[in-house]
């Protein structure tokens, strides 16, 4: 498959171009799709596909070894997400990738047996592989953008693994993990924005020279990154999801979460504080080392390193304390992870605090990451193996497993010795290195608190032994309860193989600690800006000396005393008060504050605005109603006024008609009179013609009469003429006919208006 593809090596001096990093991410992704499709058909085929995929992934990662020895291997998938995904694998990344893919392979192999009787297996395996891809992506990423992409994917994908059982506890744990993860992711994103916004690059390499001259506040950015990665790393006080989520997941998933995924948080802090915020290595001449040292004294990453040391110390101590107080096996293991992350954080802190001198802290932290991954994954798989039969893991219930599963008990003891730091087992060297580191830091700074921190370190190591003794005693010793006695404790071969492999690795590292130190840890440190002295010192270190062994003997003695004392006072049965938990003290109130104040207040505010609108609408409607009333009354007034006007007009019309009639009548009378007079005249003329003189006289008389008649006529016509004159004199004053028409029109319009108003009134 893709492994067969010969890595395309760019012959240029340092940077090597190789598709392998992309392949290491792509193979599990493709495998997850394949597993989904095969899962529809057959469980066996799917399991085979899953295991083969993890094996291929492991191979792809291991093939990078010769490349990263020469220099960082890079591969860019340009244009994806517009920004481009950039892989850059140096030796440090390679160590993480190899660790992840190896343990993933082992856990997956175990999971094929573990999950055989569970629901929704296909979903589990699909997400298991997808999570592997994102996890590898985080450590192989070459810039913070790609890292963030894979980091977010990991948060979302691993959620499905955590809530696999879908019990109430699981859902709650998953929700806490998811929300904290998303919130942490956003802090990370904010840090990335600030960094990119001010220096314009996100590449993972020493960038402090750029940061120093920019306007960036390094403390704010480092704080954001610390929170973002700290959530994943289970750093106190951001750890609350971890003891909830790790125990509820199916054991193989718990193993991966606890052993590997929390390391991505540590990896991120390493990269940011230990690399990005450090100045470019300039091949310092050791002659003026003191001058350089003085110049570096004030580096922000060093101050942050000091803070990280203390966060680490607190985390390791409180984690161990909580583990002492728990009784569920997986919960003890989860708190143990918190505690062990404290060791790792402390190492990172020392490495950052001592700047170029911090190789010891670096080596301790990285070595402990490797060791912790092996024994913690082993532990979870061991208790998972027991869980396969008992379905119960509380050490007060499940007991005496030594008789039932002696093989598991032996491997458990090996792991126990490993995590306890017994010489000959793997934890010894990393704890010794870490111890050297904290002593170095204390001596370097001559600070009293750090000497005190060293004491806490020792006490915590003793506590670690105590809670594992408790776990071992609870789980493996004692009498087997009846309900578990009758069951069959036979497992398929992968279970034995995987557990055996873990035991073997823990022993091998423990017996030959310098092999891995020189093979992996020191080459990884060369990618960082540690000075040659410190590295050479590391190279020469021999942990098999009286002083270091003496240290562990002190721890053992302390542990014995502590255990006996605690057992005597029945401390293990104590339950810590609920109100003391950081969840109760801080997170719940914070969430409640957010939900109740912010959201409820916003909702109230929103509905207030809505109501304001409705209210103003109502007001407007009220105003409209008033206007309507006013309008109606005006209308009424008009109507009444119109009626009056109409009456007046009608009356005037009648009057006019009467006058007209009177005029017409008097006119016709006059005309008739005139006619008559004419007839009379012509008769008189005739008579005049007939008669002579008499006629003349008569004519005079007639003329007189005529005059008289004339004046009579005139007298009769006078009043009507005067009226006519009056009417004719100012016709525009009151044209009766026009007035009539106007009134009609007004009435019509008023009626229309009324109609509209009534219509709308009804609409309302």
């Amino acid at each position, binding site marked *: 498959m893709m492994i067969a593809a010969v890595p395309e090596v760019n012959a240029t001096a340092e940077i090597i171009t190789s598709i392998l990093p992309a392949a290491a991410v792509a193979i599990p992704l493709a495998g997850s799709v394949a597993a989904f499709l095969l899962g529809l058909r057959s469980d066996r085929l799917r399991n085979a596909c899953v295991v083969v995929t993890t094996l291929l992934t492991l191979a792809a990662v291991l093939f990078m070894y010769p490349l990263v020895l020469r220099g960082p291997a890079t591969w860019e998938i340009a*244009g*994806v997400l517009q920004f481009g995904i950039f892989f850059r694998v140096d030796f440090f990344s390679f160590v993480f990738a190899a660790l992840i893919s190896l343990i993933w392979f082992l856990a997956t192999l175990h999971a094929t047996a573990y999950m055989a009787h569970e629901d929704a297996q296909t979903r589990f395996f699909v997400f298991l592989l997808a999570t592997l891809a994102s996890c590898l992506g985080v450590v192989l990423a070459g810039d913070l953008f790609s890292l963030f992409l894979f980091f977010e994917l990991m948060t979302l994908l691993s959620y499905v693994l955590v809530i696999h059982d879908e019990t109430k506890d699981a859902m709650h744990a998953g929700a806490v993990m998811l929300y904290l993860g*998303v919130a942490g992711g956003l802090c990370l994103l904010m840090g990335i*924005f600030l960094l990119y916004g001010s220096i314009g690059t996100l590449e993972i390499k020493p960038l402090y020279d750029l940061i120093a001259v920019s306007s960036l506040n390094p403390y704010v950015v480092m704080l954001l990154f610390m929170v973002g990665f700290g959530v994943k790393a289970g750093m106190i006080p951001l750890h609350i999801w971890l003891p909830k989520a790790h125990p509820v997941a199916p054991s193989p998933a718990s193993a991966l979460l606890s052993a590997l995924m929390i390391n991505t948080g540590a990896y991120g802090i390493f990269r940011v504080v230990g690399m990005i915020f450090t100045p470019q290595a300039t091949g310092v001449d050791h002659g003026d080392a003191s001058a350089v040292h003085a110049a570096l004294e004030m580096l922000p990453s060093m101050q942050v390193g000091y803070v990280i040391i203390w966060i680490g110390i607190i985390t390791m101590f409180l984690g161990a304390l909580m583990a002492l107080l728990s009784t569920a096996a997986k919960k003890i293991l989860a708190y143990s992870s918190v505690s062990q992350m404290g060791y790792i954080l402390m190492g990172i802190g020392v490495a950052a605090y001592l700047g170029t001198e911090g190789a010891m802290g670096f080596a301790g932290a990285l070595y402990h990451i490797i060791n912790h991954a092996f024994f913690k994954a082993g532990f979870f798989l061991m208790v998972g193996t027991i869980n396969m039969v008992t379905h119960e893991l509380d050490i007060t219930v499940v007991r005496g497993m030594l008789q039932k599963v002696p093989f598991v008990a032996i491997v458990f003891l090996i792991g126990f010795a490993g995590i306890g730091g017994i010489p000959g087992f793997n934890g010894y060297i990393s704890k010794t290195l870490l111890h050297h580191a904290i002593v170095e830091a204390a001596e370097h700074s001559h600070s009293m608190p750090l000497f005190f921190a060293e004491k806490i370190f020792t006490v915590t190591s003793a506590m670690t032994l105590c809670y594992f003794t408790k776990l071992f005693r609870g789980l493996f010793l004692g009498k087997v309860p009846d309900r578990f006695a009758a069951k069959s404790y036979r497992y398929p071969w992968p279970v034995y193989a995987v557990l055996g492999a873990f035991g073997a690795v823990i022993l091998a590292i423990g017996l030959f600690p310098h092999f891995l130190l020189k093979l992996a840890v020191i080459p990884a440190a060369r990618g960082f800006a540690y000075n040659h002295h410190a590295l050479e010192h590391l190279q020469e270190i021999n942990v098999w000396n009286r002083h270091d062994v003496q240290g562990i003997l002190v721890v053992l003695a302390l542990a014995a005393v502590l255990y006996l004392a605690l057992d005597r006072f029945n401390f293990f049965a104590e339950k810590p008060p609920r109100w003391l938990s950081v969840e109760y003290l801080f997170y719940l109130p914070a969430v409640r504050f957010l939900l109740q104040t912010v959201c409820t207040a916003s909702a109230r505010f929103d509905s207030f605005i809505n109501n304001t609108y409705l209210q103003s609408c109502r007001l407007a409607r009220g105003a409209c109603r008033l206007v309507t009333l006013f309008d109606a009354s005006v209308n009424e007034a008009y109507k009444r006024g119109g009626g009056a006007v109409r009456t007046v007009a009608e009356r005037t019309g009648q009057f006019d008609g009467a006058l007209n009639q009177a005029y017409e009548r008097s006119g016709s009378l006059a005309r008739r009179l005139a006619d008559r007079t004419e007839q009379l005249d012509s008769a008189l003329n005739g008579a005049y013609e007939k008669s002579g003189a008499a006629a003349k006289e008569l004519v005079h008389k007639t003329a007189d009469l005529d005059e008289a008649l004339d004046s009579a006529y005139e007298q009769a016509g006078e009043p009507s003429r005067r009226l006519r004159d009056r009417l004719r004199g100012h016709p525009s004053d009151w044209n009766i006919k026009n007035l009539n028409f106007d009134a009609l029109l007004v009435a019509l319009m008023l009626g229309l208006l009324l109609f509209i108003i009534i219509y709308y009134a009804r609409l309302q």
Partner: protein
Amino acid sequence: MDRVTDFLPVWIVAFPLVMTFVILAVQQYSEKLRNVLSVAAAAVSFLSVAALYPFIAGGEIIQLQLFSLLPNLSVSFRVDILSFSLALLASFVWLLVTVYSLEYMRHEHGCNRYYPVLIATLAGCIGIFLAGDFFTLFIFFELMSLISYVLVVHEETMEALRAGYKYLIMTIIGGLALFFGIVITFELGGSVSLNGPLLIREPSPLALLAFIAYLIGFGMKAGMFPLHVWLPDAHPVAPSPASALLSGVMLKTGAYGLLRVVFHVFGGKMLLEAGWTTLLAALAIITILLGSAVALTQEDLKRRLAYSSIGQMGYILLGMTVINEKALLGDVFHIFSHAFMKSTLFLAAGAIILKTGKRKIKALSGVGRQMPFTLFAFSLAAISMMGIPPLSGFLSKWALSLGALDAGKPYYVVVLLISSLLNGLYYLPIIISVFFGRAEEEGHGPARINEAPPKMLVPVALLALTTFLFGILPWNVPFDLSQMTAKFLIRGGF
């Protein structure tokens, strides 16, 4: 004037309008033909818009003055890269939603009213984007707003009628304010054309009044605080495909108008110097936080989506106050990605409602087992909404935030991230409960798959796929268009 392409904008706008009447006539005889014609109308619109691509990508601006009403006042069309991007988006989403409607509306009454109105609204919507001056824009703006009322009240329930009434009132207020702004612009600038230089160059009280009038007019449509009140009522009551269009596309007309106002009427430089962007920015920030926070308290699925739209529109409004290229790129791209995401969400919600009849989020527990594909699409869009890479919502957030940082406004980024967190808080529980929650009526054995019919599933799946592909693909059409648009607008819009 003599090229065919010059008349293409008219065709693009007129074609759906004509089709509206054709559909009105045809549906008397055949329902099937009506459906076919509706899809065809949307498809032809999409293709016609897409046909402009070679010209627009070549940096051309297509202008056409149809006829003139008064000197300097005419009905005209103008297609630049911004118009083109949005018209393409609108017609694309419209096409998918129309296809989706075929199945969804089969179970509804009043389809003879729904389809013509749907197509007429498309005409109005595209008309807004292709308008060459504010007067034409106003006409189409009113056309779209008024016609879409019918979509809002489609269910004719009391609730719908009330929401529709509110929508209508707000629309009228917005329309009047917009008209007021246009009148002032005409008075001050002597023209309302998008073609000329900046219309108002000097800050003056009257100009501020115009700016506020535009804010009210377009902000009302965009769901800007405090004019958003109609949105959470109107969007949920409409039939789901209409909700998808209202939330996915029609809200963007408000954002589009404001972009035009910022870059064509006043100019970014003047707005920044006069400090008027602060007003818009403050409103946008309140819109973002309010919308996101209130969404968290909503029990009804579609109502939660509607409030989420308010919050997301706040991103877009905030983005245009940061007047630089990066932020504008994020701004325009967010118009795209929000359209894809929100239509996916509403269409998926519609499918859920159709299949299960459940509207309350609490009741959705375990639905994912029943309708895995629909809910997968829903989840993809919701996660994109939170801005999780590699989905498209992340890209817009990324560009917006970097733009805000370039402009020296890191607290904008904080607002965006807080909103993302809130988005997570209200979307993740839905995703969790649909896939991993137990259904109320727990059956024995694996849940029966009862998936939405393919005609609904395909549009939902396509839209969800765009959310994914236009996030991760190097070959990203919306992103390229946004980039060109941002450059174009910063250059001055010519």
